[in-house]
């Protein structure tokens, strides 16, 4: 398996060159606020990979209002402001937490919209009969069983040439959140590479890693862990 993944590294790299332009083209074509955001982000990217303006994060902007004033033999009244920013109770000149924590500027529609889109994707993926690929602990090598599942998936993709697929890389709860994002990406890319070997055009495939942040199952059992170590194929709907 080690030699296999070594062979795949140059394959992954060459694939990225092919896939990246296809992705950006698609984002511009699709509608909605998020496509616009993506487009703006990509325009910013041309100037060095970042959006055009953002605030000063250096210590020069430090607010001194929160500084301690020391004990006093005749203490004067010190008014403390709450940290519920925007509650209207913080008078000017108050000390405390300089109002730096907030209540979320909640986009109440965001969660509902995301959920509806996830459900639509799930329904389309179930209807397509796509099968997931499962991985061994610490591993991103595709097993024989995984190859079998991907052969099935490749057939469906070939007979549905309009479909765009997202390959999600997932991990079990063991290990760190951060490293599992890297491992999840390796799993998703391993799945993508095998589908490409089976003749699927890389333009039809995108990868995303969710690490251990979107587990299929939440028990602390080996069975559950094995369910969570997966490459999950999703039919993209809409965006």
């Amino acid at each position, binding site marked *: 398996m080690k030699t296999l993944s070594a062979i795949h590294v140059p394959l992954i790299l060459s694939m990225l060159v092919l896939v990246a332009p296809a992705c950006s083209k698609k984002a511009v074509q699709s509608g909605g606020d998020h496509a616009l955001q993506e487009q703006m982000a990509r325009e910013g990217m041309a100037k060095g990979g*970042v959006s055009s303006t953002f605030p000063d*994060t250096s210590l020069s902007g430090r607010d001194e209002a929160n500084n301690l004033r020391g*004990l006093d033999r005749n203490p004067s009244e010190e008014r403390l402001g709450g940290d519920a920013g925007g509650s209207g109770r913080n008078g000017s000149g108050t000390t405390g937490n300089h109002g730096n924590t907030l209540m979320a500027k909640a986009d109440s529609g965001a969660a509902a919209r995301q959920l509806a889109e996830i459900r639509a994707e799930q329904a389309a993926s179930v209807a397509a009969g796509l099968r997931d690929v499962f991985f061994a602990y610490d591993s991103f090598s595709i097993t024989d069983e995984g190859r079998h599942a991907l052969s099935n998936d490749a057939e469906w993709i070939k007979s549905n040439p309009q479909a765009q697929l997202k390959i999600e890389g997932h991990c079990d709860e063991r290990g760190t959140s951060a490293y599992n994002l890297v491992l999840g990406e390796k799993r998703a890319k391993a799945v993508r590479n095998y589908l490409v070997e089976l003749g699927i055009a890389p333009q039809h495939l995108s990868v995303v890693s969710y690490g251990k942040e979107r587990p299929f199952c939440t028990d602390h059992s080996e069975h559950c862990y094995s369910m969570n170590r997966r490459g999950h194929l999703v039919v993209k709907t809409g965006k």
Partner: protein
Amino acid sequence: MTLRTLVLSSLCSLVGLVWIIESGAADVFLEATRPDFQKIPLAIAGIDNMGGAESPEGRVKLGSRIEEVLKADVRRSLVFSLIDVQGLGIKASSLGAEPDPSFKQAAENGVSIVVWGKAGIKNGNKDSDVSMDGYVYDAGNNEVVGGKRYVGSTSVVRLMAHRFADELVFRYTGEPGIARTKIAYVSELGSARELFVMDYDGYEPRQVTADGFLNLMPRWSPDRRFLVFTTYRNRNTQDIDLIELATGKRWTLVSQGGLNITPALSPDGNFLAYSSSHDGNAELYRMDTHTKAVHRLTTNAGGDLSPSWAPSGRELAFTSDRSGGPQVFLISADGSNVRRLTFDGDYNAAPAWSPRGNWIAYVCRTPKKEYKLCLITPDGQKRVQLTTGSGVDDSPSWSPDGRHIVFSSTADGKSHIYMINVDGKDLERITFTGTHNSAPTWSPAS
């Protein structure tokens, strides 16, 4: 010698002690934090309750609530040892602003500082302001060395205690204390993971994002005004965003396709280090936050991630799997001088460099395949395992005083947030609600 200079010199000698031992024999357990430094004996005589006022939550008297919060803060400061006031003959209710004759006796019994106070609702009206008076008696001078008088709405009752505790730490060490620090973290809401900020003791949680999908691994700006974090834009791409806590305003700092994870602002806030796989596999980058110029720090076939700045800003610790499983490496801030730091075990990740510079905390996989916290010195000479037992420990983050580590663990089943002293003592769970709390990160001191 005044008490304050005594303490300062004790702290200095503590630092000296650490360096002597580090250059000496191995196999010494965490002497850096099991110091000869004598904690200052402090007695809290009580926060007297004026007029029967209840705390905002009801049930408990206002003064008792403040006293309880103050005691916990003083204990966690690790600067003072809390002396039981029972048997010292001190009654808070009889104390004014002057030293009580009973203090002299307390001093003879080894108490260096006596703290007391009173709290009440102004005008006796439930919607009115709360006031708290606190006094500090110093046995060395045999006098009341000072006090504080706080007023504010009922929403700042805990803050009054935190602020008073930090004044005590500041008075006797010159450090700002940690009682007013915050912890940012990730919590599950439905199927989404959103950012939250709470007080360092787990109280007053506040939601920061409401995107309905995944927001991960927040880090503070050094001035505490912003968090940087990974957000899944439209669920399919990862960006690195900045959010201003006071307003909720957001900026996208990195948006390149691929993984864009583990952002960390430098101690002076002038640079953002992060990991991105837009060029193939995860590599470290450093962005100048003023010019937005991006400098690539690593180039190799392995994944490089989780940069953590040294307090000097001249080096970073990071995770890399270039030699197989993930290990902790060090790198200069210009990308030069990469060297591997951890060699024990086949999985070491998520390094966090202590604000004092002397330790790097990280997640280590034990021979029993448990994910626990370990500490290692930046020269690699000393290494210790900090936590034990079942459960996956993750995301260590240091308190700004370098005496505590906050982390997530599944030790009690669901993922919750815990803190532990750097000497392995005082393990304390600080979140109790929610289905999944993770990725804690401790704010700088103010």
